[in-house]
């Protein structure tokens, strides 16, 4: 597919998504709308990891650290200020600063690969332990009690900017969350087309080569990481807006693993893949709990195992390859063979950025 054709398909897809977000409240009931709001906020989280992992090559096992910090920062600020506007900003700033500090610590120590994964995982476990033991009255920030394992219930939800009395209705929350998801997607797309995006992909592909060309991989990775942290923090605020609740289980290992699963299922190295994987798995998990005949773990586990064996590259790359082969079938048969061969070579590795 030519570059222009690809671009127009992408623009069309974004337009369709915008229209879908705008029309959704008219077609689904309130419960489904709130469920989609949740899925969309989680999809923002999935995008943050999909970006730093798929395009920055940073395998972070602890993306929930930033998600959770964003959620707590939002909750504490919203309870204290009574206005969600500065609270949303806090939910972006606090995790960004944390990501900056952590990123400086690891990238300037030239830690990569699975070691990076272990450090981020460990940070998440520490945060879980720390927030879990904040049950006492002494753990109060302003007027907000952190609440330990029981968490912080009844957190104020979003209001109109600088107007605390203008609480958003669920429809408006959906517009905000769906809009943020599309905006983050488009923003990352544009970023990847920019000079910085190309350098980030170059660093992912070969750090040494990028360094020899005059780029500092440490700086590049650091900024990718901080951006990922900021997006994850924003997702945290959206999540709290949905449930009006935050507790330490937000840092749990199971959620960290779940984000990785969304990305693997949707397709690593794409931006739409994590979103698709997130919606799919979240929907699946909530459906599994509605049935009573089988143990929920049993079903989810079996699905994951079968999936890895049958669709190792993830949904989006597999579908794209199928469509591309169809495209080439019409055209040059030899080109199709070459395409398939190239894809075989790329198997098991992140699909290249486009």
């Amino acid at each position, binding site marked *: 597919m030519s570059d222009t054709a690809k671009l127009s398909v992408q623009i069309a897809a974004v337009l369709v998504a915008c229209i879908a977000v705008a029309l959704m409240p008219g077609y689904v009931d309130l*419960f489904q709308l709130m469920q989609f709001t949740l899925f969309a906020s989680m999809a923002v989280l999935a995008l943050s990891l999909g970006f730093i992992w798929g395009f920055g090559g940073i395998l972070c096992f602890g993306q929930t650290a930033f998600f959770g910090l964003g959620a707590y920062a939002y909750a504490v600020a919203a309870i204290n200020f009574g206005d969600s506007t500065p609270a949303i900003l806090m939910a972006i700033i606090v995790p960004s600063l944390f990501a900056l500090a952590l990123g400086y610590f690891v990238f300037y120590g030239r830690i990569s690969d699975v070691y990076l994964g272990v450090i981020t995982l460990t940070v998440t476990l520490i945060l879980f332990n720390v927030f879990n033991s904040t049950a006492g009255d002494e753990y109060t920030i302003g007027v907000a009690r952190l609440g330990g394992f029981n968490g912080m219930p009844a957190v104020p939800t979003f209001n109109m900017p600088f107007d605390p009395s203008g609480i958003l209705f669920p429809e408006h929350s959906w517009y905000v969350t769906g809009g943020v998801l599309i905006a983050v997607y488009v923003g990352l797309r544009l970023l990847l087309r920019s000079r910085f995006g190309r350098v980030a992909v170059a660093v992912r592909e070969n750090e040494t080569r990028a360094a020899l060309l005059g780029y500092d991989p440490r700086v590049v990775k650091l900024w990718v990481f901080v951006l990922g942290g900021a997006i994850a923090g924003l997702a945290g605020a959206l999540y709290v807006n949905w449930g009006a*609740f935050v507790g330490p289980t937000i840092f749990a290992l199971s959620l960290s693993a779940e984000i990785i699963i969304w990305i693997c299922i949707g397709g690593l190295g794409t931006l739409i893949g994590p979103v698709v994987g997130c919606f799919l798995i979240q929907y699946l998990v909530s459906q599994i709990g509605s049935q009573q005949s089988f143990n929920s773990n049993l079903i989810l586990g079996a699905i994951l195992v079968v999936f890895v064996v049958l669709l190792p590259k993830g949904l989006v790359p597999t579908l794209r390859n199928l469509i591309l082969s169809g495209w080439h079938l019409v055209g040059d048969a030899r080109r199709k063979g070459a395409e398939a061969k190239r894809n075989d070579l790329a198997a098991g590795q992140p699909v290249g950025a486009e």
Partner: protein
Amino acid sequence: MTISRRKFLHSTMAASAVLASPAISTRYAFGADDPIRVGSLLDQSGAIASSGVTMVAAIQLAIDEINEAGGLLGRPLELIQYDTQSNIQLYSQYAQQLALKDRVDVVHGGITSASREAIRPTFDRFQVLYFYNVLYEGGVCDRNVFCTGTTPAQTVEKLVPFAMKNSGKKAYILAADYNYGQITAKWMTKYMRDNGGEILSVDFFPLDVTNFGPTISKIQAAKPDLILSALVGGNHVSFYRQWESAGMKGQIPIASTTFGLVNEPSTVDASVSKDIYGCYGYYEELETPESTAFVDKLKSRWAEIPYISELTATTYEGVYLWAEGVKKAGTLDRMKVIEALESGISYKGPSGEVTLDGPTHHTVRNAYLAQVQDRKWNVLETFQDVQPSDTAMVCNLAENPNDNQQYVIDIDS
């Protein structure tokens, strides 16, 4: 806190003005034979499933019994249970589903306090009556919520003096490191001091700790007369086993507010569980006619149920208390049912006579002191009609009907 609470109330009212009206219109559109929908949120898989599975059976039993007796207000009951998979996010998700999609008339459920606090705002906001049927640390004060399990003033207050009388005045406290454990440890400390005792140390353990070696050494160094335990979950059972294997069994007595809530006395060896003191609202060993009938019905229908503890009995009684309230109100209208329930509804269930306390929305119920012998609880003493006096210190819904928070009771004062 006040500012934000008012804001939340504001949002609640604003939202309910919009949302409740369609809900009510559909609810009354049901015909006379349409089932009354009862929602339930309990964990049937994951870490907390060991408690949840039996509780689901108890709800199912209560619903079926009510249906066999002709239903409520001439309509049958229908149970909608979701497996929350020990996952807080799913609690919020299914709570919205029950409130908005299934439009249930009442929800029974929640096991951990965290799960309750996650779903409580949802049911307040969408005006769905909510019953929390599990023993917990106390302090929830919300007109839309009824808590039917025991609280520390009903159990710890009896357990501590009894255990002290049978051991000595110096205690060592072990508790799970989250709100329940921390607050229970405070109550233990208070009741020890009230009875002239002394606390040597209070240790908290994250739920995934499995190695208690250093703790057992610390306990030996401190030489207490008594160990008070609020350890929670499968991993913490390791403490009792390692205690026995270190040869400490029989040297220092143990009293626990949690041991036996799942079926610990029969999963560990008889020598491990022997002589541990406990105080709960119910044991399956109780020999009242209501209790034996309840145990027979549950175990003959679900043979795999290992043990029926307070969690299961209070869940069953919670459904019946709600049904009594609906009968008295003669309608499913939420406020009328709440008013009926506040008027002092009582029900004679497996654990004895249970009465809802209007001002606190907690229960006045019997408490039983027992000791493990040969893997069974041997009931030593019965306390009739114990008041939820801890929550009563902070909560009076008759005076402040708009209250909706969980208070941390200031125990030191």
